[in-house]
Structures are given as C-alpha cells and as structure tokens.
C-alpha cells in the first residue's frame, strides 16, 4: 500500500507555531468606509473621464489648429530672419573690407554700410535727436555725388 505520508507536501501544511494566532487581520477601518468607497472611486473615475474628454475635444478643436499656427509662425519667422546666400550683411561687408576681400556689391549696400558707420560714430560721441536727419543728409550727399567703393575705403 502506498504511504500517503510520503506524498504530503510539508510546505502545504500550516505550521504548528501559527496555530496560536487569530487569523483575523488586527486592523480596523473608519465607520462606513467600505459603504462609501465605491462612490468615491466612481467620482474619481468620472472626473478623470471628463478631463480626458475635455482634453480630447480641445486637442482636436483648439490645440491642433494652434499647433499648426505656431508652426507656421516659426516657419515665416525663420524665413524672414535667415539671410539668403546672395545677400551680404553690413557686418560681413565691413569684415570683407578690413580683410581686403573682393566682394561684388551694389551702391545701396555701400550707402547702408557708410550710414551705419556714421551712425555708430555719432551715437558714441553725442546723443542728439537730429542724428537721423544728418544721416539722411549724408546718404543724399553720397547718392548725389555718385561716390564709389574706393572713395569710401579711402574715407575709412
């Protein structure tokens, strides 16, 4: 006859040591806790659902177009603020002159640079409100006299 004792798993039996204790968990909960908990959880879920619904609705109706507008703004801003490959900025022109680099320039670029230099010089010496008028006069003078690049270099 097969001995059943040999097949009994020793880990399945409750250890004798634990028999002295009451198995009931020795904690209590506030009165009516379990009665009210389902409603508390339900309220939380409803709040989350409405928040999620609101967000979903907003994301389609507001956030989507807003994101598109922001993206468009950045594209336009980037386009207008990035110098094109064919344009030489006044600072670049000054550097080119100082480094004696040969650069093809139109007359208006020269006038801009010259005006800028005059403006900077004047603003450092005297801060008067008539600067703009004087600058215009200089520019008019340069235009009228058809001063070329070599003259400006000599002036500098």
């Amino acid at each position, binding site marked *: 006859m097969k001995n059943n004792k040999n097949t009994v798993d020793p880990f*399945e039996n409750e250890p004798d040591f634990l028999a002295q204790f009451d198995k009931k968990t020795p*904690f209590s909960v506030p009165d009516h806790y379990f009665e009210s908990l*389902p409603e508390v959880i*339900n309220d939380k879920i409803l709040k989350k659902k409405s928040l999620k619904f609101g967000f979903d609705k907003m994301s389609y109706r507001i956030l989507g177009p807003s994101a598109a507008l922001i993206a468009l703004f950045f594209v336009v801003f980037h386009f207008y603020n990035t110098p094109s490959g064919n344009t030489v900025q006044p600072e670049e022109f000054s550097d080119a002159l100082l480094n004696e680099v040969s650069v093809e320039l139109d007359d208006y670029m020269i006038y801009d640079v010259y005006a800028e230099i005059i403006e900077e010089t004047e603003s450092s010496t005297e801060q008067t409100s008539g600067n703009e008028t004087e600058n215009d006069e200089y520019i008019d003078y340069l235009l009228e006299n058809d001063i070329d690049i070599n003259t400006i270099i000599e002036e500098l």
Partner: protein
Amino acid sequence: MEHYSDDQLLSMFAARESANYAFNLIVRKYQERLYWHIRRMVIDHDDADDVLQNTFIKAWKGLDNFKNESQLYTWLYRIATNETITFLNKKRKRFLISFHDVEGELTGSLEQDHHFSGKEIELKLQKAILTLPEKQRLVFNMKYYDDMKYEDMSQILNTSVGALKASYHHAVKKIEEYFKNH
C-alpha cells in the same frame, strides 16, 4: 446586491451602457479583499485608502484590454501588489530612508495606529512580519491571511510555486525566531 460571476461582470463592462454599473459591482466585490491585502503591507489606513483607489483607477483604465488569460481577481491583486510596492518605494525615496528602515518606520506607525484592534500577541506578530523582506512579507500575508493558492500567488507575483513555498517556509521560521528572541 446581486452576486455576479467575474465573467458576467466583464461582459457587462464590455457593453458600453452598463460599464459604469459593472465596474461599481467589481469594486464592491473586491474592495475588502484588496484593501486588507494593501493594508497589511502599508499598515496605515490613509495610505491603504490611497493605494486602493489608485488600484481601482488603474483597473478601470486597463479593463478594456483585460484578456481572459488570467482570473479577474488575480489580475486585480497584481495591480494592487504593484501599486503597493510602488508606494513603499516612493516612501523610501521621499523620506530618504533605506530599504530596511521603512519596515522600522512601519512598526512605529503600527504602534501608533488608532485602527489597530488586535491583542498584544497579534501586535507582536505584526511586528515580526514587518521584519521580513518585502517579497517574503507579501507571500506570508497572501498565504496566511488570504489563504491563497500558491498557483494564484505564482500568477500575481510572477514567481514559481516552488520558490513561493520556500519563501513562505522561511518567513514562518523567521517569525518563530522573532518570538523566541522578543
């Protein structure tokens, strides 16, 4: 309240119009078991309440994707266990306490707990359980208090049945040792 089987509750939940009602019934069916499972680990009632609410909210979010590969109750226990472990880890980080000291801190909470209704010997048993490593504490509580099958525990804790049996055996030995020394 009518008593529905888990399958019936899941079918009701799947039908959109009765989802809220079905979930409410699921909460009512499992809230106490899950609460005690969490409470025995975090000791404090308010903490247990927070963890339990998070458990049910996670369950609500995940129930749409619940597959009948596991039982609803083992799935809920698994969420509750994960939430409990996450809570205890956060507690360690928040109060900059080491892995083992959190159990010491919980023993302090146990002694001051207004909702502790046991006798002196039961308080001592709880203190002894708190000396166990976290996973062993889970195994002991689930086996001793919940009388859970090792197969179900294996699904919840993702551990082999053999390892769980050994863990429970070691836990009892350690508790016995604690009683000899205190």
